[in-house]
């Protein structure tokens, strides 16, 4: 189980020769959520919302500025470098760009074997073949280099590498965004079946709501470093309460030429710079329900509007 409590990741913005810190970029600002074993938590939001940073900070690929992350009740954020290395095999990550996530100078075999060698596994050859088969590749791919494979095949290799050490938790950082639609479906199906077989827990980061709907059990919507809405898939998708969630959902294309219901709330404006976020509710400049004096004055609290359904809006449940 993964528990994230008040996670913060600020990046310093420096200036001049002496690298004086002039301000902080609050990429992740007080984010809390839980993922139960075997569950998929979908983290959605536009680019720049801090969803990838959240995923990386949970794995301590970035050092958190504040907050705590628990993995099976072990506080990851408090571990020393050695202790962290011992727990690393249990938590892995898969990236968006399948090509740049594989070292072009290594063969597929060496790429998958690397973690096995690092942790002194035996029968590496058998294990690599087993992993290749598990992700739908075969022995013939082992001798090849990444540039000889297709994007989808490379992503399978990345998955095989992530699975090599028998992880329990995977951060999937837009794992299908760079792939063709037909290949997307294959990779999603693979991820889905691997989860069922191995009982994996996923943090699924994506800007593609359609893909999240397919895989996620719970959904969190991020905006400028904050979670603005969180709940089960049905709660968030069928009964969105935050104006931003509604805006995002209305932007999913509907595969029906007769449906022309897009007018209700098309996405307007762009995400403001996280360097200089709006005061009060960070969403207020784009919000169709913006109330002066309220929304731009005070930051809303996360309110539980129904069991497990949390919304960060002054007018949650009223709109």
């Amino acid at each position: 189980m993964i528990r994230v409590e008040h996670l913060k990741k600020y990046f310093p913005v420096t200036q001049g020769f002496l690298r004086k810190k002039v301000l902080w970029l609050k990429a992740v600002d007080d984010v809390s959520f839980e993922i139960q074993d075997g569950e998929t938590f979908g983290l959605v939001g536009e680019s720049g919302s801090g969803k990838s940073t959240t995923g990386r900070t949970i794995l301590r690929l970035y050092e958190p500025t504040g907050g705590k992350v628990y993995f099976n009740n072990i506080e990851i954020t408090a571990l020393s470098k050695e202790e962290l290395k011992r727990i690393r095999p249990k938590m892995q990550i898969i990236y968006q760009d399948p090509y740049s996530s594989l070292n072009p100078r290594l063969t597929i075999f060496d790429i998958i074997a690397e973690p096995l060698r690092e942790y002194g596994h035996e029968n590496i050859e058998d294990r690599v073949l087993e992993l290749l088969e598990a992700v739908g590749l075969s022995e013939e791919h082992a001798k090849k280099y990444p540039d000889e494979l297709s994007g989808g095949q490379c992503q399978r290799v990345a998955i095989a590498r992530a699975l090599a050490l028998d992880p329990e938790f995977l951060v999937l950082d837009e794992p299908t965004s760079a792939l063709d639609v037909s290949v997307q479906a294959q990779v999603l199906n693979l991820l889905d079946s691997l989860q069922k077989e191995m009982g994996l827990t996923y943090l699924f980061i994506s800007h593609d709501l359609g893909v999240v709907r397919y895989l996620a059990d719970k959904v969190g919507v991020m905006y400028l470093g904050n979670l603005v809405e969180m709940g089960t898939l049905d709660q968030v998708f069928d009964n969105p309460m935050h104006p931003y969630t509604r805006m995002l959902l209305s932007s999913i294309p509907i595969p029906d030429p007769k449906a022309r219901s897009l007018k209700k709330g098309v996405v307007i404006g762009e995400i403001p710079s996280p360097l200089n976020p709006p005061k009060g509710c960070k969403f207020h400049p784009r919000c169709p329900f913006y109330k002066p004096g309220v929304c731009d004055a005070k930051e809303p609290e996360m309110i539980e509007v129904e069991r497990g359904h949390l919304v960060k809006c002054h007018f949650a449940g009223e709109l």
Partner: protein
Amino acid sequence: MRKEEMLKILFRNKLSILGLSIIIALVLIAILAPILAPYPEQALGEPNLKERLQPPSWKHPFGTDHLGRDVLSRVIYGTRTSLVIGFSVVALALLIGVPLGLIAGYFGGKMDLAVMRITDIFLAFPPLLLALLIATTLGRGMVNAILALAISWWPWYTRLARGMAISVKERPYVEAAKAMGIADWKIMLRHILPNSISPVIVQATMDMGSAILEAAALSFLGLGVQPPTPDWGLMVSEGKDYFLNYWWYPVFPGLAIFITVIAFNLLGDAVREVIDPRLRRRFL
């Protein structure tokens, strides 16, 4: 990229073939010097005062020097000295420069700052002047000349390797390796180094020529190779006093330097084209 493809690109350009052929010829000449040189003992310094300053002839195709030694033999033997110096200087500079650059780029922060300020100190001097200074301090001789050149040379490779390391360390496969708990030194060796080294190799190939040239300059100024060792720079230096009446003495070793430097530059261009056609030439 596969090997056949690399060879195809290499042989596409006539100048590349020329450069490569000259280098191969030079290496063969250096290895076979005792067989090729008509007067090996003179090449190594034995004077032959009866035949001082003879013009080129069938007996002495490049003429003889002020001690009557066959210039052709000495030029042939000089190939050994030059190649050894060029290779040693570049190898030594790479050995110091590349690891430092990778460490600075990969770890960043204070480490980077420290290493880069040190390279700045070295780079602030005009290249040959610094080598001269070090050679003067260390004393005359070939080994000291090599050390002096390498010490003034490594910061270039540090800069280059650092720049590459900074760009490569941001790639997801490096982060993936960190996520797997791979040790930093293994990440540097397995992921950063192989993906940063191409421009360094190109630069090093071209620098072989420059190193030979600078070593010749040191010899010319009396700080490098000492007589009677056969060395092109030294021969030009000794020959300059006889230039007006006995032109062959400094001209043939000078030509040898010229051809060798050109050949390494051509080869460097070729290597760059093979390794990365998009790579830009670094202006020195």
